[in-house]
C-alpha cells in the first residue's frame, strides 16, 4: 500500500498525470476521490476497499471536461475491461489513461462470480483465478419456454424503473438512450413496459457488457439482470467468437463486419 501511495505521488508530482482517480476512506466509508498535486495530503486516506464504485464511469465524466489531460485511475479486472471497451468506442484515448491495477481477493471474486478478477497489469494485490460459474444461466435454461417467460415476467414486473442499471453501467455512455425514446418505448410512466424495457437493454449489452455485475448490485428490485447480459455475452462468444474487454483492436461484430470474410453464424435456424 505504501508503494502504491508513493507511486501515485511520484506520478502526480512529476506531472506525468494531472489527477488520479481512486478511493479514500472518510469516517470509515470508502468514497471515490480524484487526487491532484494540490491534494497529496489526502493520499494518506487512500484505500482499496471491498466495495466497488463505477470508476470508469466517473473517469468518463472527468475526461469529457479535460480531454487533453493524462489521468490515472484505480482499476480492478472489471474496470480494466471497461477501459478497453471505452477505448474501442472512442470515449477515451488509452494513451491518456494510466491504469493502476488492483487484483481482487478470492472472496471478492467469488462474491462477484468474476471470470477475470484481475487487470492487465497488477500493481496491488495477488492475482487469483477467476470463477467459472454459470449456475444462474443454467437455472433458467433448465426451465421450459413457458416457465422461463413466467419467471422473467415475474422478475421484470418488480422493476420500479429507477434506471439504476443504466446509470451505474460503465458501458452506458450514449448521448441519447433508447430507454428514453418514446418512439420505441412508453416513456413518462412507471412501472415500465415489460419485457421490452429490459430486453432492449439486454440486446444493447450484446458486444458491450463486460460482466462487472454493478447493474445487479444497484437494482433495488433484485432483478437478476446480469444473467440476461451474461447470456448475450456468451452468445456473442459462441456464435461470433467475440468477447468484450479483451483486446482493444477487436471490433464489435454487431457493428463492424471486419475484413476477413463475413462468416455468417451457422446456428441461426436452430431453435
Amino acid at each position: 500500500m505504501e508503494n502504491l501511495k508513493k507511486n501515485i505521488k511520484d506520478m502526480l508530482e512529476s506531472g506525468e498525470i494531472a489527477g488520479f482517480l481512486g478511493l479514500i476512506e472518510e469516517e470509515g466509508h470508502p468514497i471515490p476521490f480524484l487526487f491532484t498535486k494540490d491534494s497529496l495530503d489526502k493520499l494518506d486516506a487512500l484505500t482499496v476497499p471491498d466495495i466497488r464504485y463505477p470508476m470508469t464511469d466517473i473517469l468518463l465524466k472527468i475526461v469529457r471536461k479535460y480531454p487533453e489531460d493524462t489521468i490515472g485511475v484505480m482499476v480492478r479486472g472489471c474496470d480494466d475491461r471497461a477501459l478497453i471497451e471505452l477505448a474501442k468506442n472512442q470515449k477515451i484515448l488509452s494513451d491518456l489513461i494510466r491504469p493502476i491495477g488492483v487484483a481482487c481477493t478470492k472472496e471478492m471474486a467469488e462474491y462477484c462470480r468474476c471470470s477475470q478478477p484481475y487487470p492487465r497489469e497488477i500493481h496491488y494485490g495477488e492475482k487469483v483465478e477467476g470463477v467459472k460459474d454459470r449456475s444462474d444461466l443454467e437455472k433458467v435454461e433448465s426451465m421450459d419456454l413457458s416457465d422461463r417467460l413466467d419467471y422473467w415476467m415475474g422478475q421484470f414486473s418488480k422493476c420500479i424503473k429507477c434506471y439504476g442499471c443504466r446509470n451505474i453501467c460503465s458501458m452506458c455512455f450514449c448521448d441519447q438512450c433508447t430507454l428514453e425514446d418514446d418512439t420505441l418505448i412508453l416513456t413518462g410512466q412507471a412501472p415500465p413496459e415489460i419485457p421490452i424495457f429490459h430486453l432492449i437493454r439486454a440486446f444493447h449489452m450484446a458486444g458491450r457488457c463486460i460482466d462487472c455485475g454493478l447493474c445487479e448490485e444497484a437494482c433495488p428490485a433484485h432483478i437478476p439482470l446480469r444473467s440476461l447480459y451474461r447470456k448475450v455475452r456468451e452468445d456473442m462468444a459462441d456464435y461470433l467468437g467475440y468477447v468484450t474487454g479483451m483486446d482493444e483492436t477487436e471490433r464489435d461484430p454487431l457493428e463492424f463486419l471486419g475484413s476477413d470474410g463475413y462468416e455468417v453464424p451457422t446456428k441461426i435456424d436452430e431453435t
Partner: protein
Amino acid sequence: MAETEKGFEPKIIAFCCNWCSYAGADLAGSMRLKYPANVLPIRVMCSGRISPHFILKAFQRGADGVLVTGCHYGDCHYIKGNYITKRRVTIMKDLLKFVGIDPRRLRADWIAASEGDKFAKVATEFTEEIRALGPSPLRG
C-alpha cells in the same frame, strides 16, 4: 381481433428491405400470387436498418411473429447490410429463447426482387408455422 370463429389468426410483422424483399413482395402481387393477409409488410431501406429494438417493439405490441427479409448475400444495395442483420437476428433469437419466447417466432430470410414466388412461399410457410405455435404469450 385475434380469435375468429375458425380459430386463431396470427398477426405477423414483416420488415422488408426497399431494394429486394419489398420489390419481391410487390412482384408477388403483380404475379397475382396469393399469400396470407396476416403478413403486414413494413418497408425499410435496408434489412440492416431493422434495429433489434423494432423487433422487440413488434413483439411487445402483440405481434405473433416477426419476419425479417433482405437481399441475398452479395446483393445488398448497401453492400453488407444483410450480414449485420443475420448476426443480430442470431443473437436476438437466442435472447428470446432465454426469456421464454419461442425463437421460431422470429425468422430471417433473403428474398430477391425477382422472387415474388419465394416471398409468397415464405409468407405462407411462416404464417402456418406461427398458426401452429398459437398466439404470442405477450399478447395482451
